[in-house]
């Protein structure tokens, strides 16, 4: 860990790049189409799922996370985790004060 390892920068073949961009473009079309249909609340969930798949592809291939040091994946995962912590606790408070305001505490 302390000094550089062997010269092992992984090179992704062109084929995979083009396959990934094709999927990404396709998913963009899918997400636009999905937004046309009214699934009610599910619209947001579906849109986020598709966006997450696209994001996963960009992360894994374009940003080489799949082939790189696991530490980078840990770093990215930590940032998303603590973002969810901020959202969860703020949402708990928001929910009890605005959406479900049964009792004035």
């Amino acid at each position, binding site marked *: 860990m*302390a*000094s*550089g*390892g*062997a*010269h092992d*920068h992984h*090179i*992704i073949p*062109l084929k995979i*790049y083009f396959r*990934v*961009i094709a999927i*990404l*473009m396709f998913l*963009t079309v899918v*997400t*636009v189409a*999905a*937004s046309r249909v009214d699934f009610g609340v599910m*619209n*947001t969930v579906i*849109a*986020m799922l*598709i*966006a997450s798949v*696209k*994001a996963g592809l*960009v*992360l894994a*291939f*374009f*940003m080489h996370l799949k082939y*790189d*040091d696991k*530490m*980078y994946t840990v*770093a*990215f995962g*930590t*940032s*998303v985790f*603590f*973002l969810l912590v*901020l*959202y969860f606790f*703020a*949402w708990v408070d*928001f929910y009890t004060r*605005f*959406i479900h305001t049964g009792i004035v505490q």
Partner: protein
Amino acid sequence: MSTANTSASSDGKSHVHHHAHHFDSAEHEYNAAKFGTWTFLVTEILMFGGLFVGYILYHERFPEMFKAGATFLDWKMGALNTIVLLFSSLTMALSIYYMQHDNKKMTLINLYVTLACACIFMVVKYFEYTHKLHLGIGPGNYFQPHGHGEEVQRALGFLKDYPNIGMYFSFYFCMTGLHGSHVLIGMGLIIWLIRRTHRNEFSSKYYTAIECVGLFWHLVDLIWIYLFPLLYLVG
């Protein structure tokens, strides 16, 4: 004390990259630079995340107001921008691929295409912004639609039902504005890369700068991947 790794770049003029004195080898410096870039991306994600959390929380609290606000966003422009940015992400990744094969010409082409896509993105953004601001649809207190025309009437109508619709456009302008500023920063960095590639500073042995700017650019694209559905589609 520093071991230099000469690079046989394609047009014969070899350029020597000295890694900094406190690193043991160029490989060591490369790993440190990438780890530093990823840690920086963590801070970017958390900063944008704050805005996303605010948006989602208020989206739950004022769902109709946000739906009304979203009607002013042109999803076609958004979709075009998404495709442009995805493509620029591809060309950025390809520029790294070609530099790993010491193919300076193809790297330059890809960098120029990435830069061009970024310009298209900003131009589309420019039209969206001026179109709205011209009608008086601005953030917060600057939401004073004036003039005539269907959109302005609709905006005035919404203003009566939802007095704080200005908040939706605050989120819109803050999120897309912050993202736009990062696209500009990315363009600046790509121009810096192009200059250094022309001066043969990169080779298959040393392309750290391209890879790190590439990571930053992919993150900018990542944020737009989430911004587009949240703002334009779901509304």
